[in-house]
């Protein structure tokens, strides 16, 4: 199992900490023929915009892209649920030959008349980039006729990686930002960015900020609402989580409206607390905010600490492999797992960039394997070689870990429990504990040998 070959080209995307010079290749397209765990541009746009619950999401292309993304992300809404429906222009061969613009227009009109959404997003899939539908002008026409913003999302699957899809989504969102009134927005107002309200995480985070005395104008995009996004330029700080997904929008808003942004993470006690402190520090002119923040952090940590110690005792010395979408998530996970006494022996991401991997290298212990855009064989090879007890990853990694007899924690959009914030840290500990120490491993062949 472990003497599988590694492609020559792939060797540059794998680094063993402590061996040789660090020069990891990343930010590249996957090699043709590799079993990458990555997805496409459309996927990137779809996951970023999907949680906006009162918008219409129309997927322009053949049916597959709509079917595979129908309500698969557990981004919760406290109100409308229009985002959980699946709308597709369902292009057929005829449309590929004669173009899909008419179909797109007719679909838009019918959907907007039926559902009265506050905005509409039209996702371009691969085929649109080839047949050359003028989606921009169809959207423009619908905007004028229907009186709501109808925004094209240029997410043709082949035009880059998932990251380019994030960018395309940000470009579309930027057309909404700045179109609403900023009246009644106070001085201490922020936007929460890159938080998708998986399992209600955005609600937890929002509550922390509100308890600090801050006003949250908009969440991008968890439990998202069009009206809030339109007026989000009234905030005085953008707090950006999840490295890749929404950074572009924060940059646009900085350029256009002079709103500064800071990058944070809400996973693990350390990063969660740092996030709150960093935000509080931004509003220096109001020392009350920092005072409240300290109180919140103290109370929250006091509340979970005894439980956390219990889990740490049980998990101490276990080894983990982390393979996630964005590298930023990996940073937090390493810290969070360390606070549970778990050592990280493999760390990798689908979309990390050079800076990300340098941070990752500095964080990791000697001997840790660092991977960019890994394939299942590499992942299983190093899991076995390094003796991992836990795998942190997404849907495609779960069954591989289980087959190997390794515990698993879902840190992707399919997770059912909130992992953000202080309560999330306990949830993470509980999930890791229950999987790593599951009695099933007593029956699993791998464990029987050792």
């Amino acid at each position, binding site marked *: 199992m472990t003497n599988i070959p590694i492609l020559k080209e792939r060797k540059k995307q794998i680094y063993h900490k402590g061996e040789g010079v660090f020069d990891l290749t990343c930010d590249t397209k996957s090699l*043709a023929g590799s079993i990458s765990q990555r997805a*496409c541009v459309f996927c990137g746009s779809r996951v970023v915009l999907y949680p906006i619950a009162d918008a219409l999401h129309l997927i322009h292309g053949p049916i*597959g892209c709509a079917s595979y993304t129908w309500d698969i992300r557990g981004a919760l809404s406290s109100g409308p649920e229009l985002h*959980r429906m699946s709308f597709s222009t369902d292009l*057929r*061969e005829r449309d*590929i030959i004669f173009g899909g613009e008419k179909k797109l227009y007719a679909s838009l009109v019918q959907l907007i008349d039926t559902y009265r959404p506050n905005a509409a997003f039209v996702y371009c899939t*691969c085929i649109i980039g080839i047949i050359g539908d003028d989606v921009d002008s169809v959207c423009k026409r619908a905007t004028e006729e229907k009186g709501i913003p109808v925004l094209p999302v240029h997410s043709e699957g082949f035009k880059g990686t998932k990251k380019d899809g994030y960018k395309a989504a940000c470009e579309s969102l930027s057309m909404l930002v700045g179109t609403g009134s900023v009246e009644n927005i106070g001085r201490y107002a922020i936007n929460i960015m890159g938080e998708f309200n998986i399992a209600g995480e955005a609600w937890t985070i929002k509550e922390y900020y509100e308890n600090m005395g801050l006003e949250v104008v908009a969440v991008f995009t968890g439990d998202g609402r069009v009206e809030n996004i339109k007026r989000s330029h009234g905030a005085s700080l953008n707090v950006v989580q999840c490295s890749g997904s929404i950074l572009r929008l924060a940059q646009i808003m900085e350029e256009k409206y002079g709103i500064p942004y800071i990058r944070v993470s809400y996973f693990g006690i350390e990063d969660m607390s740092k996030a709150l402190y960093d935000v509080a520090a931004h509003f220096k002119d109001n020392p009350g905010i920092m005072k409240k923040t300290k109180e919140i952090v103290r109370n929250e940590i006091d509340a979970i600490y005894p439980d956390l110690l219990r889990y740490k005792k049980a998990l101490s010395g276990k080894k983990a492999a982390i393979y996630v979408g964005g590298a930023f998530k990996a940073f937090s996970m390493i810290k969070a797992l360390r606070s549970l006494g778990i050592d990280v022996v493999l760390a990798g991401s689908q979309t990390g960039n050079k800076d990300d991997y340098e941070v990752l290298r500095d964080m990791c212990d000697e001997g840790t394997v660092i991977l960019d855009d890994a394939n299942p*064989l590499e992942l299983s090879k190093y899991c076995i070689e390094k003796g991992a007890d836990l795998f942190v990853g997404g*849907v495609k990694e779960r069954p591989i870990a289980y087959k190997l007899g390794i515990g698993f924690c879902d840190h992707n959009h399919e997770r059912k429990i909130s992992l953000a914030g202080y309560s999330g840290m306990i949830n993470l500990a509980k999930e890791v504990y229950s999987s790593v120490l599951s009695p099933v491993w007593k029956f699993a062949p791998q464990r029987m040998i050792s």
Partner: protein
Amino acid sequence: MLLRHTSKEIAERKSLTVNPAKTCQPIGAMYASLGIHGCLPHSHGSQGCYAYHRSTLTRHYKEPVMAATSSFTEGASVFGGQANLLQAIDNIFTIYDPEIIAVHTTCLSETIGDDVPQIFGKAETDGKIPEGKYVFHANTPSYVGTHVTGFANMTKAMVDYFAKQNGHKENRINIIPGWVEPSDMKEIKRIAGELGINFIMFPDTDNVLNSPQTGKFEMYPKGGVTIDELISTGSSSGTVALGGLASGPAARALDSKCKVPCKILDLPIGIKATDRFVDALRKMAGVNVPESINIERGQLIDIVTDMQAYFYHKKVALVGDPDQLVALTEFLVSIDMMPIHIVTGTKDKKFEKKILSLTEEMPYDVNVKSGGDMYLFHQWVKNEPVDLLIGNTYVKYIARDEDIPFIRYGFPILDRIGHSYFPMVCYRGGMRFLEKILDALMNRIDRDSSEIEFDLVM
């Protein structure tokens, strides 16, 4: 209510699919390819396609699903995907070492106009295909057909590329199981085994997508039809194809290419369809039906006899794929249930006619639609409520909204297990189907009966 967006009034929709009851061809091609031993499916398109197919199949089976992709870029979309596919073939054989690569196309590569056989020729000339290894392909543009036709096309491609006559007919039967679960394929093989028949099943995902926990990650699990077997299908004495839409094209191709006569049957769901299947095997192989199979049949009928009162005139709404729905409708009608709303997302000319003729004698009007969606299905259920819903996981929204008992059957099932291990075909599968139907209906009776009516013995 999750789907409160569904209105009772049915307006005509020409240009729009809402809540699809289908997906695109490539995923069907990928599923069929996984039924070949040592095969790595390959998606000739952008990276997202295969990521979605792998994720969906993984969610459905809770198993690792391996496949590769040509990772199209903007360059490939302008200059064609030849370079990508050539590089992919080279990389795949170097690193993942499959016996065979099954390439399926996508909307992107089809529209660009990539000629896959020509690219294979180039790969061959360049020595990229190692000795004893194979590549083959099916055209599966996403804007034609659905997941079902994708499965059918890939299954047919197995015949087109591999089936060969060896000059004489062997005493052996080909069984093409159609798009059913690994558990169903296993059951069909068991029945053929009970009959003492020498057979080849293709594709065969048993032991591929229901593999045991072994402590190892196997890129190529034990199951699947072998290439030698695929070659031999051309010299079998006959073919039994189950499900006209999914298996018909491959069966007909075997007939015209290798003169292997075929019998195309409905999927063996329920009493009558299983009778026809067993009878076809019996006749084709010239064997007798053993007592063991008679007993199973008798047990199935025994359940229907015992529980007839609970089935009587219960209205059912079904959504799924044509082959499944036709067989299921016949089964339900045969046990006195009333399938009144039947929707498939796949366009199939004969479908509506078949369903209407199967339900002709029923005292209710029947709504049937080929090329429909879940939205229409929900509207029909709203307008004429039913006692039971049968369909894939997405029907759970409708079941919740309308508070109707629901059985998961079809593809995909993202929220329950069982389909990988327990069959729904043949007599024993029929028994499981009835158990599921009765559980759903009787749990509802228990839930809804007053304390006074609440019954211990049912």
